[in-house]
């Protein structure tokens, strides 16, 4: 039980830490913030339930005033900005990522994780984010979707990386990938 709570807390800290590390050049020289990669990893490594709790803890801590979002942002104001949909979607994204990961146990870890991260970390997360944008900017969903297309390639790369990182972790420490008992 203590191990569960500690692992959840450490993954929450990881999401925050990935936002603090100066932009990693993750691929093709494109500098992107690694924070949403952390959310994807919550799902691929911890599984649906624990991953969602870790992401929910992250959102809760941002709400009570900790500067955990990349760039040191935080506080209740983050729930009023047009991009708040993405933040609110973190726990759901982690949950779906974990769910898909658990369902795809027939596939090799890297592929399962990459697909799970794509479905949870992009499709679901963007659904929340775009809805939030549409409401905040008072525009139809299609126009809001247009606004975020620029970020899709970067996040697409992140989903692939989630697959690679999870696969590498599985090779190094198979027991630590909870979604694959």
């Amino acid at each position, binding site marked *: 039980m203590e191990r569960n709570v500690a692992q959840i807390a450490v993954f929450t800290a990881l999401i925050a830490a990935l936002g603090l590390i100066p932009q990693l050049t993750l691929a093709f020289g494109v500098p992107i913030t690694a924070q949403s990669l952390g959310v994807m990893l919550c799902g691929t490594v911890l599984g649906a339930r624990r991953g969602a709790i870790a992401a929910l803890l992250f959102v809760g801590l941002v709400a009570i005033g900790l500067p955990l979002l990349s760039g040191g942002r935080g506080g209740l104001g983050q729930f009023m900005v047009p991009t708040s949909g993405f933040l609110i979607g973190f726990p759901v994204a982690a949950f779906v990522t974990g769910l898909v990961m658990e369902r795809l146990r027939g596939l090799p870890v890297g592929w399962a994780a990459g697909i799970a991260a794509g479905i949870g970390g992009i499709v679901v997360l963007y659904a929340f984010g775009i809805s939030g944008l549409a409401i905040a900017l008072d525009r139809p969903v299609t126009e809001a979707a247009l606004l975020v297309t620029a970020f899709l390639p970067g996040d697409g790369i992140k989903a692939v990386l989630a697959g690679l990182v999870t696969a*590498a972790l599985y*090779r*190094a*420490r198979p027991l630590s990938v909870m979604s694959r008992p």
Partner: protein
Amino acid sequence: MLGRNGSGKSTLARVIAGLQKPDSGRVRIAGVDVARDRRGALEAVGILFQNPDHQIIFPTVREELAFGLSQSGLTKPQVAQRVARTLAHFGKTDWADAAVHQLSQGQRQLVCLMAILAMQPEVIVLDEPFAGLDIPTAMHLTRVLDAAEAALVHITHDPRTVMGYDHALWIEAGAVVEQGAAPQVAQAYEAAMREVGARDDLADIAG
């Protein structure tokens, strides 16, 4: 380089390795401006940090040794050859496919050292590399370092480890307090540290 924790010696280590730009002035190692010419710096200086867990990036020994080499532009066959040669030099050819997390602390530190030596730098900076290692392991690594062809810059807070060195500097609060022959500087440093230790030192929080 002798100094207390917080004296600035780790910062100096990073500046020598070119990982941190000096506020003013230039640092040249083997003729290379290490902060500006990173490519040349990689061939001139290697740096070994205190904690191997904060240095080793790859899960197997072979991949860890190959990393710096493939980054410096060698072809894959050349990299493989260099890795094999380095492992053989240390008699650790059977470590090639070993998983890093199954190695002990001392063994991991050796992997870090091999990864640096594979790049054949002219100077190796050692940032307190023996912290947490037991005596036999520290002795073993010291022998390995002595046999290396590079010039060694050893950062430490322990005066006993500097005895075999040609020159020693005593760093305090970012400045050089004394420098000269190692035994003399070590003696002066130790005397001063013992005097500080006799007083209540932990009372002040830094800053």
